[in-house]
């Protein structure tokens, strides 16, 4: 496995090997699936959306619908306006969504298709909506595309004249449906009326019923996106995925925004719970405090197995920052922390966390790839890999246990139902990490050292 990866690290300025990111449109597609009765639409050649649907389906084990402008060589020369017009008509005729969310691709961006003009020019049925976002694949990553699509919805739909509704908008970040369910549960316990935007729960984890429904129950209703303009405030979870759309909402509708870290681990969940309680004007409910207590109980009980274990964490920036915060709380030692998404905000955030815990000797890098992570590990191994499915090759090559978290997890089932956010998510993560390390210890120890008791 990966035998050709040399231990000697050479400088690379052009060749990306084994990336830790993908392109904007797939993030935009995922964001759009979190809107009720929405058909995501990729304005490019049909291969893009075929890959994106494949990729999302493999992570969620759910249908991921999206249409394409199906560019041919002609459209690439003359522009994709006619293709988009035909696509919009056909989508409304055949698939009958309430809204089409168009995102661009490197193809349509490179030829300079003007989506604003195209959409103005298309006749759209009165009760239907078409929105768009620019998501050039050569800028940022899939996380950028997610953020851009949210901003697109807000630009088109959030209503600055919406009646004040006293609700709090929550942007959950690039997370699984299981995380969104957990966030909604916390908000409900905190007694905070909220608009979750987007909301893939119920869409990308729809129940098995023997009936396929193209637009399942879940997703943020369009009315709620309009009503974002009348919210009292917005809690944006995750800087990379949500700060920009929160800013767009603030500028457009004067909705004050608080950007919080993704609530992974104790302190970040505390911050979210505190903010939710403050917004609700109530004390933090006992039930949440009890959950927190159970998480702390587990952390202290299993502490000997976490203590000083070195970890390589990789994946999307907000998720990775959250995971790093949590493993620091567990007493573990982040050794390598990487994301493929570019942006120095990532290194600043992670470095600040490391300083808080007085942890040195950690390599932190944005716009990195898994090839260099593997090379570092070859030179100085770690006890645990924490991240996406694409770390499994390194895990096998170097015989290191792997705990899967983040996006994508293509090679396991059930992860999308279960949270990593909140205290419950912390309990799940702590258990996964402890199980992985302890299974490894049991596997590797001498017979006389195999203990049945703790």
């Amino acid at each position: 496995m990966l035998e050709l990866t040399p231990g000697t690290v050479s400088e690379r300025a052009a060749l990306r090997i084994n990336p830790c990111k993908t392109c904007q449109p797939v993030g935009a597609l995922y964001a759009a699936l979190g809107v009720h009765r929405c058909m995501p639409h990729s304005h490019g050649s049909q291969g893009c959306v075929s890959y994106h649907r494949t990729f999302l389906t493999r992570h969620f084990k759910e249908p991921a619908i999206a249409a394409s402008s199906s560019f041919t060589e002609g459209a690439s020369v003359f522009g994709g306006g006619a293709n988009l017009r035909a696509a919009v008509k056909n989508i409304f005729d055949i698939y009958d969504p309430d809204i089409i969310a168009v995102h661009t691709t490197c193809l349509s961006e490179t030829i300079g298709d003007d989506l604003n003009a195209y959409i103005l020019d298309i006749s759209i049925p009165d009760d239907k909506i078409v929105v768009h976002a620019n998501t050039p694949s050569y800028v940022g990553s899939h996380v950028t595309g997610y953020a851009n699509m949210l901003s697109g919805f807000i630009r088109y739909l959030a209503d600055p004249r919406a009646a004040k509704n006293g609700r709090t908008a929550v942007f959950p970040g690039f997370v699984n449906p299981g995380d969104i369910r957990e966030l909604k549960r916390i908000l409900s316990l905190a007694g905070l009326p909220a608009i979750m935007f987007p909301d893939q729960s119920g869409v990308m984890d729809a129940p098995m019923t023997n009936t396929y429904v193209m637009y399942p129950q879940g997703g943020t209703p369009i009315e709620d996106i309009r009503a974002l303009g009348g919210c009292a405030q917005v809690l944006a979870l995750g800087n990379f995925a949500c700060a920009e759309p929160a800013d767009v909402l603030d500028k457009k509708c004067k909705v004050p925004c608080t950007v919080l870290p993704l609530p992974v681990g104790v302190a970040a969940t505390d911050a979210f719970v505190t903010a939710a309680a403050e917004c609700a004007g109530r004390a933090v409910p006992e039930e949440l405090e009890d959950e927190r207590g159970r998480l702390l109980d587990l952390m202290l009980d299993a502490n000997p197995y976490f203590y000083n274990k070195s970890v390589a964490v990789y994946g999307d920036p907000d998720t990775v920052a959250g995971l790093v915060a949590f493993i620091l709380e567990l007493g573990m030692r982040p050794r390598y922390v990487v994301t493929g998404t570019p942006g120095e905000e990532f290194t600043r955030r992670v470095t600040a966390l490391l300083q808080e815990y007085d942890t040195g000797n950690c390599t932190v890098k944005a716009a990195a790839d898994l090839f260099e992570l593997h090379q570092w590990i070859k030179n100085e191994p770690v006890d645990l890999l924490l991240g996406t499915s694409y770390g499994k090759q390194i895990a096998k090559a170097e015989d290191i246990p792997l705990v899967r978290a983040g996006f994508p997890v293509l090679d396991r089932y059930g992860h999308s139902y279960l949270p990593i956010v909140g205290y419950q998510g912390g309990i799940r993560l702590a258990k996964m990490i402890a199980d992985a390390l302890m299974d490894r210890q049991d596997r590797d120890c001498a017979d006389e050292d195999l203990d049945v008791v703790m």
Partner: protein
Amino acid sequence: MDAKAEILSRYNAKVFKNRKDHILRVDRDTDGAQEIAANTRAVPGIMTNRGCCYAGCKGVVVGPIRDAVTITHGPIGCGFYTWGTRRNKARAGEDGKNFIQYCFSTDMQEPDIVFGGDKKLRRAIREAVEIFQPKTVFICSTCPVGLIGDDIHAVAAEAEKEFGITCTAFSCEGYKGVSQSAGHHIANNGLMKRIIGSNDTPPAAKFAVNLLGEYNIGGDGWEVERILKRVGYEIVSIFTGDGNIEGISRSHLSDLNLVQCHRSINYVAEMMKSAYGMDWLKVNFVGLDAICASLRGMAEYFGDDALKQRTEEVIAEELAAVAEDTAFLKSRLEGKTAALFVGGSRSHHYQTLLKEFGVRTVLAGYEFAHRDDYEGRSVLPDIKEDADSKNIEHLNVEKDPARYRVFLSPERYGELKQHIDLEEYRGMIRDMPDGSYVVDDLNHFETEAFTALLKPDIFFSGIKDKYVLQKGGTLSRQLHSYDYSGPYAGFRGAVLFGRDLVMGLYAPAWRLVVPPWKKQAGGTQAKGDLSHA
């Protein structure tokens, strides 16, 4: 109203006009062949399952060659999506070079799009050469590269000189053609121009073949290789599953090309015929009868008595080894119905195997086929070139006088053509049951609608459809990647395939989907319950 009419009636005028010729009901009473429209543009907005030219070139044909560093020149997505997602297996050869686990991309950024990406590509090749010392580097371009006009072929030529490697570029931008099919053709051309015929080391064995259009998904190629080796063939090269440059470079010295996936690789077979005089034989190693017929056809071609005898021995042994299993599986599968929607030849090949298990095909279609894949090659002279297909280069291959050799006498060739599929593919339609449906470029709506009307027990398709179907109560298996199973080809593969179907159809959970309180309340019986009881 038949299913075709009912489905078409739901379309608006323009979509109706486009789709009506892509759907047909097999009618055995029709005089002459039934005609179907194929290899035309997908309708925008229709939710086609098709991919793009890059997917066909890099993803299908070029990507599986294990010892070439294939660099995707473009923004990160395209390279990323073809990283370890197709299950084309490979093991390193003696040189240890196996790049299948790696993804290489130039990860183009905005300045590269604005100022040109060729500098970055040049540097990326240098870095790849320095780190991995490959003998061969391939470059596959994605959409923006063609639009901004990076001259990847010039970069490749420079790299060859500078590093003493083989470096070949494939201009397979996603917008070319109408599906993956354009990419297959571009890949075939590149291999023919640059790799095939570049090494004159002859095969060692008496009977040497190439296996074309076998991508070793789930290890299919290895199972076929096992059988062919037992009979006594040398496989000089496999295009391209677990393929390697050395094998492909000397593939012109084989005696016969075996064509498995007709769509993706027939160009190479034809070009090798023109250049080297090498014949090709359409084979199918999926389904026991088909395997036996293919092996016998090969033995016929070589016309060697000992080979024929050995073929019969192997067939007898292999069939005996799986007889008990296949009989049991048939008892569990008999009477079921299936729909198949895959890319190239598989929708056809698997019908053979399904029939052996007593499973009747009610619907089959190809994602990116041409008319000849449906109707047979006899239709080739009648296929009109349209603007999209004209854009894909057609190589005019000259005869290579030094290497041209004719294996069969004209008389023998004519004789054999009567009873084996020598340079012949008769298409899928002729093997389909009367009243079944053939649908080209089946889309999301049609998948749902045909499933509701025809109620197949099993729907073989890809990952994008899989959960649409299963959510609706129909078992779906991925016939692109075999879910996480395989091989399905060969004698042993047939058993595994049958086992996987039984596993899926008889999963206890199907019967638990409808909660008891809904059953008591007189709720309708779930489809899953009826078909999987």
